[in-house]
């Protein structure tokens, strides 16, 4: 009886039923595959009708097979092949969706995206006029290329030449100051020194020298007082020097201590933040443990050997000492 129950149900099915079951599985797998192909982004256009166009370029500039082909910003196809043409150019074959064919007319032009220089290559086709005929499949399309880096540098070259020329002109200008102008400047300097001489003579006169002597006397007194103050400051300066000698070391130690303190406080803060949570959880665990222990206490034979807590709330009466 027991052995009969252990036989797999498949052995109890008829041959026809088994065949049908296998067929269901196979069909389900095929259906699944078809659905995957139909709804996958990469393969959804697999069964769409397409047409091809050809173009020639002299520099691929990042264009590869699978480079998208755009019209009005929509991807309408991709580059399907790159090869060499008989005249040693690069032949580009583009495969486009048939439903966009009507946009590609005889006056349509194509260009490689300007961003292809930095790797984001794409071919953009300008839609043609509706009154022009469609370019047939396997037809040729004019494809223009953006400037390469070398071409850009070639355009910058003349500008650099202009800058060089301007600098040269400035240099020439500085050498074109005339000696007459220099002579005038020297003349003005001589007049200035004459004025200085007059001022010096005024100082040399009796009134001037008296004023000067008084001023010098005041200066002498002031200097003496300053000297006295400096003498008083000398010990203080010595102490300050002695103290300041240790200062860099102290500052370095203080800096180290402050850094260590900051680190420690950071750690302590983190720990402190975790502490209330920890205490709360510990409390919960203790409460649960307490409940468990109470349950164990109430279970025979433990209950008979564990003394009950005294419930008295008054201290025992003893003869006062």
């Amino acid at each position, binding site marked *: 009886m027991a052995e009969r129950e252990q036989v797999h149900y498949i052995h109890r099915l008829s041959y026809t039923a088994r065949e049908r079951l296998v067929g269901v599985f196979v069909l389900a797998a095929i259906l699944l595959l078809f659905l995957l192909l139909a709804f996958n982004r990469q393969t959804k256009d697999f069964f769409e009708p397409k047409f091809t166009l050809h173009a020639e370029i002299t520099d691929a500039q990042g264009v590869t097979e699978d480079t998208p082909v755009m019209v009005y910003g929509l991807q309408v196809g991709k580059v399907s092949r790159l090869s060499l043409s008989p005249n040693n150019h690069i032949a580009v074959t583009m495969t486009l969706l048939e439903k966009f064919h009507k946009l590609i007319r005889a006056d349509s032009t194509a260009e490689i995206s300007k961003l292809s220089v930095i790797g984001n290559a794409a071919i953009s086709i300008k839609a043609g006029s509706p009154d022009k005929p469609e370019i047939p499949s396997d037809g040729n399309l004019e494809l223009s290329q953006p400037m390469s880096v070398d071409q850009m540098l070639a355009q910058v070259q003349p500008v650099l030449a202009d800058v060089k020329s301007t600098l040269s002109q400035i240099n020439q200008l500085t050498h074109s100051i005339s000696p007459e102008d220099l002579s005038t400047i020297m003349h003005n300097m001589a007049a200035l020194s004459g004025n200085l001489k007059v001022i010096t003579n005024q100082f040399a006169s009796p009134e001037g020298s008296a004023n000067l002597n008084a001023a010098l006397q005041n200066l002498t007194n002031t200097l003496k007082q300053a000297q006295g103050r400096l003498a008083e400051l000398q010990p203080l300066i010595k102490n300050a020097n002695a103290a300041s000698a240790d200062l860099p070391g102290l500052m370095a130690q203080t800096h180290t201590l402050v850094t260590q303190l900051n680190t420690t406080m950071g750690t302590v803060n983190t720990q402190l933040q975790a502490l209330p949570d920890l205490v709360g959880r510990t409390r919960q665990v203790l409460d649960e443990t*307490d*409940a468990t222990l*109470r*349950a164990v*206490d*109430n*279970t*025979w*034979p433990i*209950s008979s050997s564990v003394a009950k*807590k*005294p*419930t*008295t*709330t*008054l*201290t*025992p*009466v*003893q*003869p*006062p*000492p």
Partner: protein
Amino acid sequence: MKHRRLFLAMSATALLTACGSKPVVPPPVVSNSQTFMASGMAAYDDNRYTEARSFFGRAFMEYRSVDDLEHEADALTDLADAGLQQGDVTAARDQIAQARAVLASHPQPEVSARLRLLEATADLLDKDPASAATVLDGLLNDASAPADIKRAALFTRTQAAYDAKAPDAAQWLAKLGKPEGDLEQARLDRLQALGDAGKATALYADALQHYQAAYYRPGIAAAHEEWGALLMSQQDWKGARDHLQRALNVRLWMNDATRSARIFDQLQQVDTALGDSATAAQDAKWSDYLKNGGDTTKTPYSGSSN
């Protein structure tokens, strides 16, 4: 075989489950107050009175938070009792007054009788044996007072009679009859020593032995203190110093500032008599320090319970 084991295991589990009962988890306030009370009692039994007062105080706050007047009175009584064990008469009297106020609206005869006993003890500590005798006489004549409180009151009344040097002291001593247990025996020995100087030394030795058997620190300290006082009266200064010092060690451990200060005063007299004026000056200094609210843990010889 396999099924039989399973059956046995399930049967054992069922049996154990049947033998148990669902634990009753009390509300936190009840659980907390019970824990505080139990911790306070444990500390009190081990003579750690500072700790006991702390726990009784916390239990009192729990009871008060739920307006449990009955247990509030109990906690206040415990606080007063532990306070008196440390010689803190001021705090004890305050707690006795609070407990009386609670009992005014919720009378509990047992607690009321206990408060009268504590009040008499406070009077003895304040050196007022007359007042203590009055309170105790009323308590002893109260028919509703519990027997154990009356028994303790009789010991205290006898002490009051000896402190007051009353002529009926011996009669009170005779009323004590046969002691029960180490503590009663030791207390009786000490009271007998007060009335019989000839046997005092032997009686104090016996009392000390009983107190040490019970690990009862207040009794050990009291026995040494009284023994030291006896030797002082006999001018046995060296012996007196030994007993007083041992009494002081115990009192300081219990953070009993009042009695410690009293012992420092006695030590000052002894050290002066021994000619050690430097130590006598130190004794006087520490006595003043404790009388002015000083911390017992800051004194020499302190090995505090806290």
